[in-house]
């Protein structure tokens, strides 16, 4: 199991730098199909993983002086409010509805990358 999780982490890390989208879009479907987590647990666990990765990434960039803290607060503070709403909303969705919504979300991003 740890090997599978490590593989997901590796794939997510590679994809996030190569394609410029976060790891979450890769981690959630892999946790569902490769580890067998229910969709809600996959989304929750993806957020935990992103927290670790983003903290490391932000620190590395901050040492190089690339982070603009004011701008991060400008979008990050409303995003915290949004995340509270989003997680609350997610709990009202069935696993089936959430999986379908997520697949639509992934499809939109996929088409955007192709075009």
């Amino acid at each position, binding site marked *: 199991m740890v090997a599978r999780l490590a593989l997901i982490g590796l794939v997510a890390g590679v994809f996030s730098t190569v394609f410029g989208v976060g790891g979450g879009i890769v981690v959630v479907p892999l946790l569902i199909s490769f580890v067998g987590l229910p969709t*809600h647990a996959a989304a929750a666990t993806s957020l935990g993983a992103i*927290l670790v990765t983003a903290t*490391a990434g932000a620190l590395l960039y901050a040492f190089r002086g690339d982070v603009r803290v004011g701008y991060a607060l400008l979008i990050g503070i409303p995003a915290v409010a*949004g995340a509270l709403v*989003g997680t609350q909303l997610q709990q009202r969705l069935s696993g089936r*509805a959430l*999986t379908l919504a997520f697949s639509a979300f992934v499809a939109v991003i996929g088409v955007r990358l192709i075009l």
Partner: protein
Amino acid sequence: MSGWAIPAAICLGLVAGVLSGVFGVGGGIIFVPTLLLLGLGQVEAAATSLLAVVPTAATGALRQRAYGNLRHRAALVIGAVSVVGAELGVQIATRLDEDVIRRAFGVLLVVVAARLALSARREPRRYPDVS
């Protein structure tokens, strides 16, 4: 920066947060274009987006922990290994044609989306799966 840019950035931040909470993504997919709109360069936008992802993901993860959905150990393993994967990604990205890999990834995501939609047919309509 024109007058509407800041209110627009706040609204887009809110949207990114909702997407993050519902789908378990970081929100960078909205943050990065928003920061570019605000006039930041590509590297600054990526760096600043990562900092904005930290409180967003932390909020979602803490709420999910209260709901009993967070698998701590799995999250730690994936997160830690992906830091290594990111370094590998930098090596790959500098060797390949950006447009080709972007489109290839787009195709892959569409396939993943179709598979997920098919797998959803097997799931119950109601909510028992996170109990």
